[in-house]
Structures are given as C-alpha cells and as structure tokens.
C-alpha cells in the first residue's frame, strides 16, 4: 500500500492507475483532490444540497467501480493521458448523475403543470413576480440540459469544447443550450421583466397575443423547448 504522502505527489492520471492496480488508498486521494469542485458543480446543477450530495455519491461510487481492476478492460484509467482528461471524466460522471436525478424528478420547476397553466380569468403566476429572481433561483427554472451547460460554461468557465466532452454532445449543442438558457434567464433577472413588453417580436403569430399579455416572450420560448435546437 502506498502512503498518503506518496499519493499526494502523484498526478491524477497516476492516481487512477495506482487505484486500478489495486491500491485501496488511491481513489480516496483522488476524491479528496476533486470533491470541492465537483460539489460546487453538482450543487449548482441540481439546485439543492441534498440532491447534490446524493448525486456526487452516486458519481464517485460509479467512478470507483469503473476504474477498479476488475472492471472490463481494467476501467477507463488506462485510457487517460493526462490530468485534464481525468478532470473531464470525473465531471462527466458527476454531471450525468445530476441529470439522472433531475430527470427522475420528472416535473421541472418551470414546466407548468396543467392545473397551473395560465387561463383566461386566472392570474398568471409570473405576473406576481415583480422582483427579479436571484440568478441561482432563476437558473433552477431552466430545463436541465440548459442548466448543466450554463453551469459549466458561464458559471465555472469551462470552454465550449471541454463542456461538450463533459456533456457528451457537440460543441454547437453546448452553444445552443447556453444561448437558449441565457435568453430564458434574462427576463427573470430583470425587475421590469425586460423592456420588450409591447414589442411585436416573436413568431409564431398564434403566440404573439399571449406574449403581449404576459409582457414578454417567455411562454413561446418555453413551449418551443424540447428537441435539440437547430438554428
């Protein structure tokens, strides 16, 4: 077994290799090294600490198993060529665990339930929202894919290319998710719900009246969510 002090001197990739070779301490060292960064990404992605703790736990357990010597092909450790690859891999596992949990939650905070859908004569829940939302609270209202992309790229400064590896999608998809997420955040972050009220600005025409009533284009953008956006 390797001493802690010896492990501390190893690179991430070497630590994973040592773990895959059977050192029971190596993975713990890797965990200690990355846990705070991964914790932050998980908290901001899932939006609360309880679920973030569960997601990080899921992620580290599966990372440990995937890189153990008995895993098929001796785990992914053999494929790592540097610490940035290890960091990306760990983030991918954590973000995936977060996304899994959020999808299992089934109902997103922003998805209007049928009974809360604004109807004529009913108050629009957004109309009561006079003050701008805290940026974190606003982030929590986004679809999970947009949230994950914004957390990585805008919040934690990942490049679009690296974020694409974490999210396992094309760089263009990351850009698109970020753009849509920002477009959705903006009205929530402004006290006056934006100065676009009254502008005739958005297709489809059938939505335009509704948008005017609501004061911005939030609803049509919400209903346009779904498949991968292709400009």
């Amino acid at each position: 077994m390797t001493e802690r002090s010896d492990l501390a001197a190893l690179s991430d990739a070497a630590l994973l290799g040592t773990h895959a070779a059977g050192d029971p301490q190596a993975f713990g060292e890797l965990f200690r090294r990355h846990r705070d960064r991964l914790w932050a990404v998980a908290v901001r992605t899932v939006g609360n600490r309880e679920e973030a703790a569960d997601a990080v736990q899921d992620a580290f357990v599966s990372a440990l198993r995937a890189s153990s010597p008995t895993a098929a092909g001796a785990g992914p450790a053999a494929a790592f060529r540097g610490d940035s690859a290890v960091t990306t891999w760990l983030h991918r596992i954590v973000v995936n665990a977060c996304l899994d949990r959020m999808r299992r939650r089934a109902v997103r905070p922003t998805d209007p339930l049928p009974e809360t859908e604004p109807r004529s004569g009913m108050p629009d829940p957004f109309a009561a929202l006079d003050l701008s939302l805290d940026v974190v609270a606003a982030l929590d209202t986004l679809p999970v894919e947009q949230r994950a992309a914004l957390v990585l790229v805008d919040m934690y400064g990942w490049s679009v290319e690296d974020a694409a590896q974490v999210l396992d999608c094309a760089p263009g998809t990351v850009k698109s998710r970020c753009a849509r997420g920002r477009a959705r955040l903006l009205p929530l972050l402004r006290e006056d719900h934006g100065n676009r009220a009254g502008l005739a600005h958005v297709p489809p025409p059938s939505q335009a009246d509704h948008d005017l009533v609501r004061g911005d284009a939030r609803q049509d953008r919400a209903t346009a969510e779904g498949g991968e956006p292709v400009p």
Partner: protein
Amino acid sequence: MSTDHVHGPGVHPDLETLADLQEGLLPPTPAAAVSDHLDHCPVCRDDFAALGEIPGRLAGAADVGAMPDEVASRLDEVLAAEPRTASVTITPLATARRNRLTADNRVLQAAAAAVLVLAATGIGISAVQDRSDGGMATADRASAGDSDRGLAEGSVPVLSTGTDYTQATVVAAVPRLLAADGPKVLANPGAEAPTRASDSSATQYAARLSEGPALSDCIIALADDPDTPVVEMPTPLVVDVARFDGEAATVIVLPTADVADRLDVYVVGPDCGPADAKVLHFARVPRP
C-alpha cells in the same frame, strides 16, 4: 428557426435569436439582418448587451463553499465500503514450491503448479490483464519462468465484501462474486451489511493479501492437505475476504481440476497458511 420575423418595421428579433447571434449560431444572412436591426433599435441593443452580461452574473454565483464535512465523511465511508480489489500477478511456483513441497507429495503436479504473488502498488496498468488470461499456469509457463517471480501472467480479483456467508449463501454468491465488477456485490439484498469493525478488518486483511504472500501460502497449504480434493494448484477466479457463520473467513473460488463446468469453493479462516489449512467449508458448484 424561422428568421422572417426579423424583417420589417416594428418587428423585433426574440431573445433566443439575439442569444444565438451572440453565440455565432445564426447563418450569415439572418445574422446580417439581425445585426442591421440592432444598429437602429436601442431596445434590442439593450437586450443584446444584457444577454452578454449573464455569464458574468452566473460566474458571480459560482462559490458554494467547500463540500460540507458531513457529506465528505459520508462519502468516505461509502467509498471505503465498496469491494476492494487487488491485482494478483501469477508467477511460476519455482523456488517456493521446491522449498515447501516434499518429494512424495502425491497431489501436486509440479509442472502445473504456480504460486500467486499479489502485486499492489508497483504494478502498472499494463500488468492488469483481462481475467480470461488468468487461467491455469501451464507447464510451459512454469518452466519458462522458473525463477522469474516478477513475470505477470494474469490477475485475480481480491474482493473484501465483508459479507457474512453461510453454507447456503456462499454457494449462491458465486455468480456475483465472479461478476466482480462491484455493483452486484453490495446490491445483493441477502448480503448482510458489514459492520464498520468487520469491514475495516476485512479491508486490512485484503491489504495484507495484496502486500504479501498470504494467499499463495494459503493455496499451497490447501494443496498440501491430503484431505482436500486439490489435485493441482489452479489460479483462483476470485477471492472474497468476508465472514462465514459470523467468523472472519476468506472465500476462494477455484476451477475444478479436469472438470470444465465445475468450480470449487473453499472457505478458509483468516490465518489460512502453512500453520492453518483448515477448510471451514467446501462446495463444488456448477460454473455459472
């Protein structure tokens, strides 16, 4: 996305279109049209600028503090409870065999004998081989590597699930021990969760296995025992440092000599070796 709406007086691009423009996602023609619009529309220009400020506002909310101690320590415990694995390198028996075995030993076929040397930290990734290569040591291997104890010829997983087996459950556990990737081992609803004490001692024992010749000593001792049905010393398929009827024990799963579709399951005590080759339980089971 349709971009028709960006044309004409009084029609403004929506926020998505502006955000797409910012990310360079619009095709050239609509991009030019939206840019033109921005040139003469202060409202949209404000929106465009506000969109550009969002990354900074998000970055300002990046700090969530360190992982709380209670979360970190819970995770440490969970990770420590995962089945630990160690890589076992097979080297020909050579000197160890000659030192240990008497000339009239009737059960060991010298050419097929191998000693297991557990290799832990010093081993590179390349030495961790597919378990399918960790089969029986052949006569060729034994003679070719006679004194080369460092020769890596395969690996055997050493788990420490801490499971408290009984005669019935140890047999039933063989398939998932062989799967050995981990998830099924702890997920088994029949497996008793290890206490911290037993888990800790099992982990320590697994570490001892991975540092010294304890396992090879044990298997040699089993082979030396004329009361056991070992006729040659095979490579274990999996080893589990666990418990048996409440006592610390090690489960060793070996291929049955000359019977391809059977496995031999030995349960031995924690001190299994030359001085204690007592077999707590033995079962021959179908190979899953």
